């Protein structure tokens, strides 16, 4: 059915496309060319406009406006020239996204300096700004998620406050919605609140106006059963009322149904003839093989109580999602405007797990909806929104399915007094999550009830232009959280100095912090590990009083526009981040009874008989990450036919006070130290005088000056767009990632450098339709970009873009 809808849209677009564009025939271009300035100046305005239409705006002028003179609104909370922005910021326009051939929003971010984009499975990506990813490393995969970047759609946070991070497939919008994506690099909590630790991604949707196409969109299909499509219907009704409806769809499959299982000593797969195949490391297995794998003691690798079919009900599917959105704008005469939007999305992906199974893969399902109201009344801006729905962060894993609700309300005032701009604001956020509706009697969830995070904040931003050219910016923000019950301050001080009209130098010092996350504050999950290696029970507990991860950054930037058609930018940055935390072992306890001695000749069985219990609590670490780095970028409109762009970022992150022990290593140390106390205390245990042994001992040794290798030291992009004739456009970009070594609690993996070359060729049928062929990873480099995830090779698509 979905394919029929897809074909219907394509057919409609083709038919619509063969209509012809009306043209002005009243005056000829030759006549205009022969007119003197004096003659032109005597024309009434309507005739002058007609003459100008005949001359046309050169493609060069349009491209220069589009690519070189971009605006950005996220760096100062008002539109300004990106060239003058006090922060490291980039605007990615819908035209640039279309040219690139990117098939997802995440992939399009490869065009933005400083953004690391690694594909995990077909269409599912890890996205980080500048790095600081996988910290603390040697831990659960969840700590590799990007908890340092705040993503917003029209200022509405779309963020996973359960674990922290962005669940990309739950974005309800597609390319048909987007006007531009703005990325601010560096700490920006002072502007947008917590989690803007390493930057902000603000997706801004297109406003409907009288010149908007009634129907626009695109569709493409290709290898690995990849189908994507989006459509928008827009209408300006006059009297300041506009409406639009958009929809987007993606279906993408993996080229395998296997999943990666972390290696374990003596891991083997029994066969039907009573033999077994032993594996000495992690590798990909079929789903049924995964459920039969055992360790050296014959104990199941996977959780024997898991239903494999529920864990992976469609392991060959990488991503399927659709979204629908509606927008109503009311901009009456006067000083007020209102924008109301709402939408729904449904998604299922197989990507890196947010749970803690012995495989790196996991399913994720979401059904969410939202409503967002923005009002501008004079200089006062009000915004309120609610996102609700159901999310299952690890399908088939008990306790990961929750009902969620996020409410935000904010008020900001923009006050310009000559050269001084003041921008005070207040905001409130409530995030609530409840797993109880999905727990059967006796089942333990992760939260076991409804849990809430509340954040109240106040901010003030001052922007002053001194001596007509030196721009000084100071932004302060205070946040009061309920968990932890603390007040946090974030700030940003920036200065921009023009050197003539073509150069800018700028400097920034800023501090930002993460917010609290539900699992950090409210985890309450008991993991019964019956049938697996001890401990028998692990209890995960939140911590209501911990320090939030905080970063300080200094940045220097330089921009130059040597000619009107080229802009170059360089930035160097250094940061210090601390107060990292993780769910780590606090203590382990053995239950002792005389019966345990019946297993005296089998230490493992004796240990299992004590039913060890480990308490894991979210706790801060002494870890300190120091990063230095630099980015350069260039946008160059060489001619109306050729555009070149590039960016490159180098970084080095050094860890101080790093504990190299994994969670399992600490648990094993605690259990072994307790087990060694059984024999010396045998008499007390036999007589019932000693019924419990407990320890909270942990290794104290820490490492300094350790290079963090999860983040590539170098990454970047080079792109060329060439238009040999009016109807043909060929665009290509290559994205490079240098070598990385990723370590989680089970294994480490070195990922070789990768250069991903993409190309798209578009033929314009007429003013309403274009056909294209689109190759992602055209050289078919079939290697993985993210540890323990799929080898994502080339994907080749054909498609059509239309607007009418």
């Amino acid at each position, binding site marked *: 059915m979905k394919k029929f809808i897809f074909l219907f849209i394509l057919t409609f677009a083709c038919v619509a496309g063969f209509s012809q564009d009306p043209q002005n025939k009243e005056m000829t271009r030759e006549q205009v060319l022969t007119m003197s300035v004096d003659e032109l100046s005597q024309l009434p*305005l309507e005739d002058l406009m007609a003459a100008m239409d005949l001359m046309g705006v050169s493609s060069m002028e349009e491209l220069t406006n589009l690519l070189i003179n971009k605006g950005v609104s996220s760096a100062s909370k008002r539109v300004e020239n990106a060239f003058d922005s006090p922060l490291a910021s980039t605007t990615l326009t819908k035209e640039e996204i279309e040219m690139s051939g990117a098939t997802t929003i995440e992939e399009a971010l490869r065009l933005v300096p400083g953004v690391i984009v690694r594909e995990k499975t077909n269409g599912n990506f890890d996205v980080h700004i500048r790095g600081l990813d996988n910290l603390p490393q040697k831990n659960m995969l969840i700590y590799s998620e990007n908890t340092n970047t705040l993503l917003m759609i029209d200022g509405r946070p779309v963020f996973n406050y359960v674990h922290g991070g962005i669940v990309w497939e739950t974005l309800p919008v597609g390319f048909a919605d987007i006007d531009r994506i703005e990325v601010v690099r560096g700490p920006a909590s002072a502007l947008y609140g917590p989690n803007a630790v390493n930057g902000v991604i603000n997706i801004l949707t297109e406003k409907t106006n*009288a010149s908007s196409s009634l129907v626009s969109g695109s569709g493409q299909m290709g290898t690995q059963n990849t189908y994507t499509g989006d459509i928008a219907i827009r209408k300006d009704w006059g009297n300041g009322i506009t409406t639009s409806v958009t929809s987007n769809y993606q279906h993408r499959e993996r080229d395998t149904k296997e999943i990666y299982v972390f290696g374990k000593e003596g891991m083997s797969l029994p066969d039907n003839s009573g033999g077994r195949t032993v594996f000495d490391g992690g590798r990909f297995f079929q789903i049924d093989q995964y459920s039969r794998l055992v360790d050296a003691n014959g104990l199941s690798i996977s959780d024997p109580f898991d239903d494999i079919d529920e864990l992976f009900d469609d392991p060959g599917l990488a991503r399927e999602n659709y979204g629908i959105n509606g927008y109503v704008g009311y901009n009456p005469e006067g000083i007020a405007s209102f924008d109301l939007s709402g939408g729904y999305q449904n998604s299922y992906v197989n990507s890196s797990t947010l749970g803690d199974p012995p495989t790196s893969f996991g399913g994720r399902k979401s059904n969410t909806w939202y409503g967002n109201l923005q009002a501008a009344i004079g200089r006062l801006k009000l915004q309120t929104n609610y996102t609700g729905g159901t999310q299952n962060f690890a399908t088939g894993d008990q306790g990961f399915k929750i009902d969620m609700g996020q409410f935000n309300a904010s008020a900001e005032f923009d006050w*310009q007094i*000559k050269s001084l701009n003041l921008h005070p604001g207040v905001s409130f956020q409530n995030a609530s999550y409840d797993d109880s509706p999905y727990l059967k009697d006796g089942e333990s969830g992760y939260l076991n009830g409804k849990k809430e995070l509340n954040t109240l904040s106040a901010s003030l931003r001052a922007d002053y232009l001194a001596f007509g*050219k030196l721009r000084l910016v100071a932004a302060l923000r205070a946040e009061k959280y309920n968990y932890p019950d603390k007040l946090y301050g974030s700030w940003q001080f920036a200065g921009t100095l023009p050197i003539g009209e073509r150069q800018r130098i700028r400097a920034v010092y800023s501090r930002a912090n993460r917010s609290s996350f539900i699992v950090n504050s409210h985890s309450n999950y008991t993991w019964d590990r019956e049938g697996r290696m001890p401990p028998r029970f692990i209890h995960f507990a939140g911590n209501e009083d911990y320090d939030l991860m905080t970063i300080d950054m200094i940045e220097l930037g330089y921009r130059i526009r040597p000619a009107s058609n080229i802009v170059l930018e360089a930035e160097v940055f250094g940061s210090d981040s601390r107060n990292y935390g993780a769910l780590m072992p606090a203590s382990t306890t053995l239950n002792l009874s005389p019966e345990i001695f019946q297993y005296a000749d089998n230490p493992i069985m004796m240990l299992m008989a004590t039913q060890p219990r480990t308490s894991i609590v979210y706790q801060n670490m002494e870890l300190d990450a120091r990063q230095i780095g630099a980015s350069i970028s260039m946008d160059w409109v060489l001619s109306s036919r050729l555009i070149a762009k590039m960016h490159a970022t180098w970084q080095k992150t050094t860890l101080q006070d790093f504990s190299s022990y994994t969670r399992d290593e600490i648990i094993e140390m605690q259990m072994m130290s307790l087990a060694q106390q059984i024999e010396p205390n045998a008499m007390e245990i036999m007589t019932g005088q000693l019924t419990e042994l407990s320890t909270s001992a942990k290794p104290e040794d820490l490492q300094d000056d350790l290079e963090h290798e999860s983040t590539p030291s170098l990454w970047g992009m080079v792109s060329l767009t060439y238009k040999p004739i009016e109807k043909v456009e060929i665009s290509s970009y290559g994205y490079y990632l240098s070598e990385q070594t990723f370590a989680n609690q089970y294994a480490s993996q070195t990922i070789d450098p990768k250069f991903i070359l993409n190309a798209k060729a578009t033929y314009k049928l007429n003013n309403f339709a274009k056909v294209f062929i689109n190759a992602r990873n055209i050289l078919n480099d079939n290697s993985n970009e993210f540890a323990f995830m799929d080898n994502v090779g080339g994907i080749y698509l054909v498609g059509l873009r239309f607007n009418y």
Partner: protein
Amino acid sequence: MKKIVFLLLLSLMVTSPASSQMSQFKALFLFNFAKNVDWSDYGGTSDFVITVIGNDELAKELKGLAKIRKINNSNLVIKEVRNAEEVGDSHIIYLSATQSSLMPIIASYQKDNPVLIVADKQGLCAQGAAISFFTANGKLKFEICPRNVESHGIKISQRLLALGSVVQ
């Protein structure tokens, strides 16, 4: 072969002369705006002053126009400044795209003056511009915000209003 590649690149890099043509038309538009706005309450200089910020080419075109044309029998005087504080008595202030970050500051400095602020970047009416140029489908167009015209005590002709894209 290397020479061919070099020449090819050179040919691609040659920028179009159309930017001066665009400046000429923008100058003519400004001249035409002047004819379609009523400054009858203006009590300043008897010359008609257009102040240009950040566009030397446009200023040059306007100066050429000033030699041959008048506005309602007033001499056309073109001034060039670099920042908001330097802007003196003006009938029209033109703000280039590259200097558009100055828009809110100019609007604040000029809020009580009878002046038509024309910006060269789409969307600047939201920051106080009365008229803002933009390009769409290969054509030069302009947004016009009646509120930002009237708030300066000047009146705009219905003809000008009809030819622009009205924004609130």
